[in-house]
């Protein structure tokens, strides 16, 4: 049996795939641990999961406050802030905790989320093999390739931090998507394992008895959205008023039409089998969870990898894209009616679902990780 250490940032979407893959490794009898922010990790992992601290509550609160400021930025300022104020400082902050975890746990392999830069740095210094958990497929195709000077600036930041470009392991990169959806070919180290959904832990309650109607739609902008999110949600409420469907909207309480069930959080994965379509900002997890259930999408990407993910959905024919900051109620309604009423969207989502099933999920990821230990 082997020992696997997952290094993760304090972000739900980045922890979730590792919860699944780690759960699969545990089920196979391996020793598994996580290092990151215990308060973020505990609700997403099994009760007996071994968790090492690398970020305390003060640092985590500081990161959240920064992300609030970051949400107000637009254009290239988003990228600058992301690297200079978030990723690199987070990397530095996590190094001591990750070093301690490596010393105490003694992993055979370090599995680092692509936004946990401390993972590769510490593993390399300890002479341990490290692999990448790519929580989004969008950066496999370098989005900065058309802006060489910006790309060089990112590489310089990484060189200063770790002496090299540590974004992706050259041993193994776990990608929770399929080659069919991403639509490009990569080297053998890139493993398209599909969404890792087995063994996932969802502790949020849901009023199942309140699900009604023949057709149901989830509207969720993820855990981060800011003021533009408020605008989009109010347009979405107007869009669905009077439509013959039930809407589950993830948002703080507000006045809503009677066919809307408003909840601050939902067990999203458990909800998927009860849905007919999903309206989302294009977070990689939400999009792939929906497609894994053959659900068509309306995607209004906000930033980061979301435009790329939205483009993947459109290219696959599995959804309609909207402009997040400018979409009106009429646009949202018409997009929703298209994906619900035109069967080709669901058929395309079904095809993606089949490509995910063939990719193998958490079991395929665990197979690849076992091979890394075997050398």
């Amino acid at each position, binding site marked *: 049996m082997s020992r696997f250490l997952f290094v993760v940032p304090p972000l739900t979407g980045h922890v979730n795939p590792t919860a699944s893959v780690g759960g699969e490794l545990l089920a196979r009898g391996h020793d598994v641990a996580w290092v990151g922010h215990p308060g973020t990790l505990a609700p997403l992992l099994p009760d007996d999961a071994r968790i090492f601290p690398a970020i305390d509550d003060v640092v985590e609160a500081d990161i959240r406050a920064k992300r609030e400021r970051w949400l107000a930025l*637009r254009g290239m*300022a988003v990228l*600058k802030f992301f690297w200079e104020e978030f990723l690199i400082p987070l990397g530095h902050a996590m190094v001591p905790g990750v070093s301690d975890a490596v010393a105490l746990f003694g992993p055979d392999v370090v599995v680092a989320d692509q936004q946990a830069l401390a993972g590769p740095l510490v593993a390399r210094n300890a002479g341990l093999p490290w692999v990448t958990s790519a929580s989004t497929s969008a950066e496999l195709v370098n989005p900065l390739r*058309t802006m060489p000077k*910006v790309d060089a600036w990112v590489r310089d930041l990484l060189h200063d931090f770790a002496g090299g470009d540590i974004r992706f392991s050259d041993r193994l990169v776990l990608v929770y998507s399929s080659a069919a959806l991403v639509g490009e070919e990569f080297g053998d180290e890139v493993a398209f394992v599909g969404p890792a959904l087995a063994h996932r832990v969802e502790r949020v309650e849901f009023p199942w008895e309140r699900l009604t109607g023949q057709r149901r739609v989830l509207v969720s902008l993820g855990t981060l959205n800011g003021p533009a999110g408020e605008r989009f949600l109010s347009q979405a409420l107007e869009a669905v008023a009077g439509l013959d469907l039930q809407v589950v909207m993830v948002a703080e309480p507000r006045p809503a039409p009677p066919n809307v069930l408003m909840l601050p959080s939902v067990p999203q994965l458990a909800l998927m089998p009860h849905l007919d379509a999903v309206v989302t900002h294009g977070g990689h997890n939400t999009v792939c969870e929906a497609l894994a259930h053959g659900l068509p999408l309306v995607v209004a990407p906000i930033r980061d990898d979301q435009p790329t993910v939205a483009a993947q959905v459109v290219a696959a024919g599995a959804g309609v894209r909207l402009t997040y900051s400018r979409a009106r109620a009429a646009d949202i309604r018409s997009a929703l009616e298209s994906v619900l009423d035109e069967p080709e969207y669901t058929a395309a989502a079904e095809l993606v679902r089949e490509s995910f099933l063939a990719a193998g999920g958490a079991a395929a990821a665990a197979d690849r990780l076992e091979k890394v230990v075997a050398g």
Partner: protein
Amino acid sequence: MDEVLQQVAKLITEVVGADFLLGVEITRDTTFSDDLGLESIEFVALADKLNAHYGVDLVAFLADMDIDEIMAMSVGRLVDHITARV
């Protein structure tokens, strides 16, 4: 020069939608990042329009810039680029 500025402002308005520019006058000092908040899909649409109208490659124009230049990129700078090229 003014003609190019007017045309670029018209193309931006087509991409973004006039509704969303109410009260925002597009001048030489208007920045793409901060003032217009151009989304990536709108940026691609604008690049297509500029290419069709002037044969100017917006992606190639930006390829020479560093991150601070891109952040500060204004309508005036694009207008000067087009004027020099056509």
